[in-house]
């Protein structure tokens, strides 16, 4: 068993080495496919992170009237928290609002002096409400407008522009991913054809060995195996090369990604997803190699 596996691997590497120039050209094409897929994975992660950070920043704010009693405010808070679509509700009391306001404007003396001259706190309490999905924000805004007693409410603030930005960004990311996947699939088909051609040439140049194998009673798996092995070798090598080549690229672009999405550290993301990315790349490239080899072998290596 192990002897046969060892020999299959040996013959696969022999085929690989005998047509090294062709193998190199074939691997370049597979590399292109994998690079596009790697781009899709990385771009997808950056896009998702950008989207998430924007989503995290938008909410519905309910500003209460200055004289609204706190117990009624807390009752509204409890009602809102009871809604299925609501993820998080933050209550900011009048005192906290003033504190935050002062902290934000410590360097502005005019504002600080104006606040000091006022006898009482001019700011109202508020609730900042985050929903599970951004699509649910208008629902919550409508609920607040319609169901919270009017005498308690000063203003319901919900910026519709944020939703439009998110929708536009989602559309751009989705469209880019679709274009990327179409390009990758097109390149994958090209790669399948190139590998197919390489395996075919391998079969042709090894035809003497193949016929001798048949005469001496080599089993079908022994005759076909090395050509399948060739596809697997191409797959493993190209996936490994792509992952190694990605390391300096990731380090190079990470500082620019931070400018675009401040919360996203590309290097950390790449390190934590390295194994998953490597396995995905192996699955894609070995898939290309195996599919091509199986087609070529079934077509040109009859029993």
């Amino acid at each position, binding site marked *: 068993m192990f*002897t*046969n596996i060892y*020999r299959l691997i040996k013959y696969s590497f022999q085929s690989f080495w005998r047509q090294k120039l062709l193998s190199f050209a074939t691997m370049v094409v597979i590399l292109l496919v994998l690079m596009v897929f790697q781009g899709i994975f990385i771009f997808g992660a950056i896009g998702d992170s950008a989207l998430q950070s924007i989503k995290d920043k938008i909410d519905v704010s309910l500003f209460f009237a200055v004289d609204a009693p706190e117990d009624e405010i807390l009752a509204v808070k409890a009602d809102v928290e009871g809604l299925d679509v609501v993820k998080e509700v933050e209550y900011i009391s009048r005192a906290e609002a003033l504190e935050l306001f002062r902290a934000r404007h410590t360097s502005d003396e005019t504002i600080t002096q104006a606040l000091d001259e006022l006898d009482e706190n001019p700011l109202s309490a508020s609730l900042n409400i985050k929903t599970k999905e951004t699509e649910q924000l208008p629902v919550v805004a409508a609920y607040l407008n319609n169901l919270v007693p009017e005498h308690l409410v000063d203003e319901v603030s919900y910026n519709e522009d944020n939703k439009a930005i998110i929708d536009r960004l989602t559309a751009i990311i989705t469209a880019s991913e679709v274009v990327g996947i179409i390009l990758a699939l097109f390149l994958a088909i090209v790669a399948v054809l190139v590998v197919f051609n390489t395996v075919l040439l391998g079969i042709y140049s090894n035809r*003497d*060995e193949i*016929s*001798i*194998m*048949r*005469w*001496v*009673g*080599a*089993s*079908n798996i*022994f*005759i076909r195996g090395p050509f399948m092995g060739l596809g697997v070798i191409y797959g493993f090598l190209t996936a490994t090369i792509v992952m190694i080549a990605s390391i300096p690229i990731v380090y190079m672009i990470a500082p620019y990604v931070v400018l675009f999405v401040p919360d996203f550290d590309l290097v950390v993301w790449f390190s934590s997803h390295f194994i998953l990315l490597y396995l995905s790349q192996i699955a894609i490239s070995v898939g290309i190699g195996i599919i091509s080899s199986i087609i070529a072998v079934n077509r040109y290596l*009859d*029993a």
Partner: protein
Amino acid sequence: MITFENVSKQYDDGRYTALEDINFEIKPKEFVSIVGRSGAGKSTIIRLLIGEERPTTGRVLFGDDEVSTMHPRDLPRVRRSIGTIFQNYRLLPRKSSYENVAFALEVAGVPERDIDDMVRESLDLVGLSDKADNFPHELSGGEAQRVAMARAMVNHPHLIVADEPTGNLDPLNTADVIKVLEQINDLGTTVILTTHNKDVVNKLNRRVIQLDGGHIIRDVAKGKYMLA
């Protein structure tokens, strides 16, 4: 051991008949020469026997196996019991004599530890132990054919099929090759030799099946090559 029963083989949708109503039986340890001029159907018989082709009608049996209807995945098992030798040697040019012989064992799944002994024994039997490291282009025609014979018999097959093995050889090398075939037969292996070399057949004085135009015209236990 080998039975051809009412075997016919046609090509081009019946426009060309290579063999017609062939019937014969070969017993274990026999040495049989199948003779006839080019195109008589000798090589077709070999191809049918090793399962490379299927008869149009009739049955080909090797032991208990009906080769003519066998599933392709089962053919390797039968072929491992048959050593095949061809006119043009069919050695791998990038492998030495030793490696050519060992290759047959490797692809047959023989364990690494057994290969060395088997290869040296086989090369010894054909008298080429000293040429183990030579490549095919460094060998004479006779030596190359003997390496091919070593390869054919290295995994101790029940049958050796030699398809025109002396076609490219001078009389001296021809005699060497035939001598080795006789030695193999003496050791108990059945041998089928196809040839149109009259001298070889006459000198052997063994069973002769003579073909002409796809028909068996003679089958004698100890015979000579008669012109058809």
